[in-house]
């Protein structure tokens, strides 16, 4: 052990502000880092070899429409009559009045505006169907749809959506007879297109060939119940602390426990503005974490909770500092 001293003393400042002039001990920072790196590398390699990592295969519109065709059709009907989750979402996807969440009178969602506009009728149904080649029946159905007034289109779509929802198992073959216009043909062809895999590509490539924005296919899939059923089976539901879980029994984002916690308790769990409120609370708490040194009371907690006496027990034992 060596000891050093500085000829300058700063009695005007608190001890912790002064450069340390007391006893020192040899401490090899580089050696410590190299050993730490080796330990972490070996530990990581062992954990990866023993436990691997989860990889539950992704859903596609194709797998969804083949595994749960009735759910796909019912969801498509809501996209066509404008009652789906996406169609009524509000900013940043649609201009739906009063859909945006608020914190008190302030709606940051509304202020940010519609930056990713989505028209579910056009983007999820009509545009993909117009790309289907050599289908006279579909062409006639689309012609009938385009030739009808907006009110007539809405009447057809809403009636079919309602009838499909009431049909046993949402089975289109068991839909009560009614005036649905070209809607059954259009949605039937959309199902065929989805099952062939064509809808996945059609939704992804509407903007350009080199597309990486999966917003439309993901929102379409999320409007149905199949994705949620799969997620809940993997204990990923919102009321299952899902945001911090992983598929299988793997550790997920455990550090999101506080964010996830708020969704489990009232008033957040029952509020229509839950997302905005939780984000507001977490923003305040995050700022408080960053500003701990400046918050009276909070910054004094370490003095009241004597964990530091455990951390520095060797120093206190040897120095005689007993307060």
């Amino acid at each position, binding site marked *: 052990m060596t000891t050093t*001293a500085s000829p300058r003393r700063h009695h005007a400042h608190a001890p912790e502000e002064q450069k340390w002039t007391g006893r020192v001990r040899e401490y090899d920072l580089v050696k410590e880092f190299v050993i*730490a*790196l080796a330990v972490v590398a070996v530990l*990581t390699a062992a954990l990866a070899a023993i436990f691997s990592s989860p*990889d539950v295969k992704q859903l596609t519109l194709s797998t969804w429409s083949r595994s749960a065709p009735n759910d796909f059709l019912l969801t498509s009907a809501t996209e066509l009559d404008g009652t789906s989750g996406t169609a009524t979402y509000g900013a940043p996807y649609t201009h739906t009045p009063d859909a945006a969440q608020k914190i008190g009178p302030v709606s940051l969602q509304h202020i940010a505006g519609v930056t990713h506009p989505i028209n579910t009728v056009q983007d999820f149904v009509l545009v993909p169907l117009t790309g289907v080649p050599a289908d006279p029946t579909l062409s006639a159905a689309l012609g009938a749809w385009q030739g009808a007034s907006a009110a007539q289109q809405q009447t057809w779509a809403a009636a079919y959506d309602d009838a499909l929802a009431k049909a046993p198992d949402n089975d289109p073959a068991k839909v009560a007879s009614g005036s649905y216009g070209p809607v059954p043909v259009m949605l039937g062809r959309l199902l065929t297109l989805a099952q062939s895999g064509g809808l996945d590509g059609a939704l992804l490539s509407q903007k350009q060939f080199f597309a990486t924005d999966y917003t439309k296919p993901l929102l379409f899939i999320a409007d149905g119940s199949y994705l949620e059923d799969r997620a809940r089976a993997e204990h990923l539901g919102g009321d299952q602390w899902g945001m911090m879980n992983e598929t299988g029994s793997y550790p997920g984002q455990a550090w999101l426990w506080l964010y996830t916690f708020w969704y489990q308790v009232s008033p957040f769990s029952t509020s229509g503005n839950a997302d905005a409120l939780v984000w507001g609370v977490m923003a305040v708490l995050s700022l408080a974490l960053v500003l701990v040194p400046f918050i009276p009371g909070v910054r004094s907690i370490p003095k009241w909770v004597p964990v530091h006496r455990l951390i520095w027990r060797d120093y*206190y034992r040897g120095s005689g500092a007993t307060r």
Partner: protein
Amino acid sequence: MTAPTTPHTWTGKVRARALRELPPDQLLPETQPVYVASWIYVFGVLTLAAFLVVLVSGGVLGLKGRTWWHRSSTGHYFNSLHLWSVELFMAFMVIHLWGKFFMAAWRGKRAMTWVTGAVCFLGSIGTAFTGYLIQSNLDSQWISTQAKDGLNAAGIGAFFNVTDFGQMLMWHIALLPLIVGVLIGVHIIQVRRRGVVPPMEIDLRDRVPEQVTP
């Protein structure tokens, strides 16, 4: 031998300032105050070590492309390395953070050390979150479609679109690691510049030098 002169170039002034604020023996000292003797001090360097393993494993995944780990057992192993190194990184950092909290490590003009560390923690959460978004599997589909609601409600989703794979990939492999890496560098420089915070209720006899070196 010429007498030392005051630097007049920008380069010279930057060098002089850097040497004055953080001389080499303070940047990489061979001794530490006697109170730096606890296992809690190890978690800072463990966090840094885990960060490097995260960068290397993630770098390999990035170099091989986004679908590699789904179709290659070697790729899957590298994904596992990335996952577990992130879990260790976050665990070490949380322990480090709580340790520093109970040491009140912001004392003695060290507030910026705490602030940069806390921002590192929050930035790391964001970085890990974007990593979960770009797994391109069921988990990432579910997380993105759920997380969009919170981000949209806060107005953030208008420009930070969690369902845009390309945008999230860039945030995860370029922007956020760069920000976190720079913050970690600043944090470490702050630690070295101010020194390790001394214990509360310090024994003032320790302020009296036992031996003065010439």
